[in-house]
């Protein structure tokens, strides 16, 4: 069945609400407006205002209320409009949700799911376009996922809700309109494994979220030049599934990490470090990365494009690794 990412996410949310009375959705404009990305359109009429709960513009309080509601036995799904806005709630995510199990020595836990849009590409400029997944992936106590495929959009939410601890779901804003085949694999979605989306022999492209499609596009372009790229979708940004991408790099002996975050202190840096730690002597070339340029994401289309990882930049990075630059 061919569906959009939005439809997959919407169906997943619908399933969760319909099957578990403890689940409710809370956030800015999730109800009457239908969700800022129209993911929850029609839910208010179907599930009512108690479970499709419009909030004031109070990220700190409603994310914190999600923490409290999770402590109180519910399974809240809190929607934050974009990762930039989540900074207003950072205290409750990092200082409360992530810490309660540990500080209380396991007496309390926070089964909270926070969904947020991330990423650039729609000319929304610097305060709506950043990719800060690595900030959250830094924090013990959180699980961080980035569904990039239709199967994951359909299946990851249920896994996140089944998790007894806080899970942050990053949905790249450019993905909502993307379409693809929904396979049966969505039923087996986990929050632990990376996935090889394209097999190849010459180089491993490691991507997640919004850079997965760009990496697949780069791989197709490379194939035309006779370079066979493998594409790994990390899927889960914390904890990282080292085994899958390290095994891939050992096979291909080369790796490019493609990260829409800024290069300094990036998740790409973490993945590269782990490759050095675990597979240095299997490499034929230094690990490379393609990240966003170190500028706030600008508004003008040509500047925004230039700031972001693009398939052509990935292709160029691979060529350099292979001495064909």
């Amino acid at each position: 069945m061919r569906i959009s990412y939005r439809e997959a996410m919407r169906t997943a949310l619908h399933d969760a609400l319909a099957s578990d009375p403890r689940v409710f959705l809370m956030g800015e404009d999730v109800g009457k407006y239908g969700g800022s990305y129209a993911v929850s359109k029609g839910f208010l009429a179907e599930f009512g205002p108690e479970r499709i709960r419009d909030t004031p513009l109070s990220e700190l309080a409603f994310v914190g209320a999600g923490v409290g509601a999770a402590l109180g036995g519910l399974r809240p799904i809190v929607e934050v409009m974009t990762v930039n806005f989540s900074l207003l709630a950072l205290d409750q995510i990092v200082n409360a949700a992530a810490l309660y199990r540990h500080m209380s020595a396991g007496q309390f836990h926070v089964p909270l799911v926070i969904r947020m849009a991330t990423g650039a590409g729609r000319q929304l400029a610097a305060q709506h376009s950043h990719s800060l997944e690595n900030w959250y992936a830094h924090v013990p106590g959180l699980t961080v996922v980035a569904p990039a495929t239709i199967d994951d959009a359909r299946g990851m939410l249920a896994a996140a809700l089944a998790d007894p601890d806080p899970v942050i779901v990053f949905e790249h804003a450019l993905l909502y309109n993307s379409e693809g085949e929904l396979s049966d694999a969505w039923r087996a979605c986990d929050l632990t494994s990376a996935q090889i989306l394209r097999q190849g022999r010459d180089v491993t492209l490691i991507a997640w979220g919004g850079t997965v499609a760009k990496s697949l596009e780069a791989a197709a372009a490379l194939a035309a030049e006779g370079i066979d790229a493998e594409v790994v979708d990390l899927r889960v940004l914390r904890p990282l599934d080292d085994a899958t991408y390290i095994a891939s790099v050992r096979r291909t002996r080369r790796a490019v990490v493609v990260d829409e975050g800024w290069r300094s202190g990036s998740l790409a840096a973490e993945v590269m470090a782990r490759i050095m730690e675990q597979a240095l002597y299997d490499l034929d070339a230094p690990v490379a990365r393609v990240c966003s340029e170190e500028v706030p994401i600008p508004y003008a289309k040509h500047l925004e494009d230039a700031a972001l990882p693009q398939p052509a930049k990935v292709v160029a990075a691979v060529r350099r690794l292979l001495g064909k630059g």
Partner: protein
Amino acid sequence: MSRAPAPVTLPRERALALLTDMLRIRRFEERCADLYGQQKIRGFLHLYIGEEAVAVGAVRALAADDAIVATYREHGHALVRGISANAIMAEMYGKREGCCRGRGGSMHLFDAATGFYGGNAIVGGGLPIAVGLALADRMQDRSRVTAVFFGEGAIAEGAFHESMNLAALWRLPVAFFCENNLYAMGTALARSESQTDLCVKAAAFGMPAVRVDGMDVIAVHEAAREAVARVREGGPCFVEFQTYRYRAHSMFDPDLYRDNAEVETWKARGPIHNLSNRLKADGLLTEDEFLAIDADAAKEVEAAVAFAEAGSLEPVDDLALDVVAGAAR
């Protein structure tokens, strides 16, 4: 001539229970200060001495299954709530027998059995959580009240305003208990707030708000009972308890920001002798009885110290336990 003490309006047994709890906290906190000097307790230690009437009167106004969200100055609330002095002291010793196995320490006491949700050391951090706990109760048709304690310093935080709005908007069963001890660390209320009438701020959210003498445990208790009943019936309520901490903010604080005369003025209104003098004036308490209650409190604390001293250390192999479910072990 000072005024004759106001008569005690509670039955003797209840009044004595409040006095006992205040003495338990006072002796516990004094011993903590000693132990800090001996380096048995480390890290930050925030003492509650002087403020005992608030925790005692307010916590005793809650039902057994109500929830509490507290601050980092929460030993007193934990003790009154029923977490054992042993478990609290062992926690401060960083021992495995502590209520959080040494993970939390003084500022992060938690106890699932008594509905004690921390021990929050981010000023204002507990307020949104209390709103969420109350939301969960409302959505699951439970009649539980969540009492959240916070200092007047928290009122400058956005979390206060956002949480008050959300609780009032959704009519959630939260009792907002503000412990106004006049200083946010070293910053006096008038130096940090354009409007120092805290009840006016609460009223701006359409929430009932009352101000109470926080040095008078009976006044605290009666106001808290009224507030809790109101919250259980209809929605959130704000109570400002005007109180004072005799000690510095923490053991690191040289206490340079207030006059000794001010401290002495407040000490003259101390919550313990405030109540004991009234009980004596009413013929409800003798000095010997008072001393016996005090001795029992000291005995409980000494037993807790012995318990903590004899405690064991969490194995380092379990360091990563309880980060997420199923880790380590």
